[in-house]
């Protein structure tokens, strides 16, 4: 860690002289590509709306943590998101209600419930950190957790990417190839839920889904095959993460949203390039 800081400090930039910026940069370089990796398959699975709901469920998870008097509500945020992901997975399988309608219902419910619980006594303002995120306050310990989670996702992408990919194309086709389609779908939903929930304090629940979707959507416009789709998404996320962090320092703006604006810029460029 001290090596990282001294490396940064040797750079001739003002932002690189602060420890918190060094930690934030590491966090951004960990979180952005992991969200981008997930995003590729989220788009393939047409689950963008599902991941949005996962982000919004953090409000209720946060409220449960507050009710239980937890100092760090991460456990309840992650726990609630996972429960919700599994519940929605089951709903998709057994209910005749169209998926987008059921997600909209669930999302309305978890947002309302979270806001009602958190606003009791007029104390909602102190939770606004979770809405916009604050990556500059990350500690080395928290960074360790993020690194562990990133490791899990990268391992899943090394060993099971093709399996997830086949299920996203056609469940029956995947099953005919001996893949446990339902299990893989459930695992993928839970993975998205956990990564989104863990990232929310740093990225902010209002913009987390954009960080998931935008890099992949950008790469999708340009990629000629799946390989460049995934690698392109990771590249776009790293660039927008880095540029977003540094520009938020100079503009004195919320980092998560600034990163998303850069990603929007890249997406627009990719649209123009695609049209030509």
């Amino acid at each position, binding site marked *: 860690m001290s090596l990282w800081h001294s490396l940064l400090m040797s750079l001739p930039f003002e932002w690189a002289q602060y420890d918190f910026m060094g930690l934030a940069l590491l966090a951004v370089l960990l979180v952005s590509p992991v969200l981008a990796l997930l995003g590729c398959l989220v788009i393939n699975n047409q689950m963008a709306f599902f991941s949005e709901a996962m982000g919004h469920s953090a409000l209720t998870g946060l409220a449960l943590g507050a009710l239980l008097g937890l100092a760090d509500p991460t456990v309840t945020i992650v726990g609630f998101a996972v429960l919700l992901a599994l519940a929605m997975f089951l709903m998709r399988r057994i209910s005749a209600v169209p998926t987008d309608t059921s997600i909209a219902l669930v999302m309305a419910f978890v947002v309302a419930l979270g806001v009602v619980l958190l606003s009791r006594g007029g104390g909602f303002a102190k939770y606004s950190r979770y809405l916009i995120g604050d990556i500059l306050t990350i500690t080395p310990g928290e960074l360790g957790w993020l690194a562990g989670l990133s490791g899990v996702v990268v391992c899943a992408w090394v060993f099971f990417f*093709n399996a997830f990919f086949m299920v996203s194309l056609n469940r029956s*086709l995947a099953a*005919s190839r001996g893949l446990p389609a339902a299990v893989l779908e459930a695992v993928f939903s839970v993975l998205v839920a956990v990564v989104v929930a863990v990232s929310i304090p740093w990225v902010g629940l209002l913009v987390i889904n954009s960080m998931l979707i935008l890099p992949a959507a950008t*790469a999708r416009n340009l990629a000629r095959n799946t390989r460049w789709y995934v690698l392109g998404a990771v590249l776009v996320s790293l660039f927008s993460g880095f540029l977003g962090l540094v520009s938020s320092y100079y503009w004195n703006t919320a980092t998560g949203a600034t990163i998303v604006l850069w990603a929007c810029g890249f997406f627009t460029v990719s649209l123009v390039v695609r049209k030509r």
Partner: protein
Amino acid sequence: MRSCGDCCIRLVDFGVRLQGQPVLEQINLHMHCGELTSLIGPNGAGKTSLLRSMVGEIAHSGTLRFIHQGNVETKTPLRIGYVPQKLELDRTSPTTVLDLFAGALSRWPLWAGTRKAVRAEALAKLELVGGESLLDRRISEISAGQLQRVLLALALAPVPDLLLLDEPVAALDQGGMERFYQTVSRMRTEYDLSILLVSHDLTSAAQFADRMILLNRTILCDGPPREVLLSPLIRQAFGFGFTEQEIAERRPAFKELEHEQCDFPMRRAP
């Protein structure tokens, strides 16, 4: 006729329940290798559920067995090739034909590149259906007919014991449909495959099938296509039937197929 007769696929007391409701009951079925069976039935008859349970996507009761020569049951699980009606892809999808093969045949993650062996295998299977030139094309930019041929080639890698096709020609035009059925027919003889084909288009399917099964929750009728189409059960299930003449007019096309494998003039019933 073409069947080796030595091996068969046997469904015994096969049934499927979805959300507690029985959708298929008491399915007892033998399929021999080299035999193309066409599965027909009205909407909601359970055709797709039958395929989904056979590939193992949804649970079933009863047994599905592959029996080798001399009534020896194999220890290895039945290898099933499945040709879906469509893939869940949108127009912007970067997925290529090669991605499809690599994703199915190899555990090496797609984003880390494709092994040479996988590429060669994909190319070899595509050659069987005349689709070599499609290898590096994106699936979203090839035609419906080309995609069906690609999916057929994929189902043949590796060569399965049983090939299941779910309304493979629904999105194709007349010419594309005929070419597709011809290719499937050729595969049946070449690899001595058991083929089960779900079809909406009753008469076209009949021309290529050795056998036809009318399904509505259970097997209502099972026999040569001509007999099944003439059965009064057809009118009960679909609300319309066929006359002897209508089917007879299709015989020449059927005959020609036996000798000439491609580009024959297909005669349509009025």
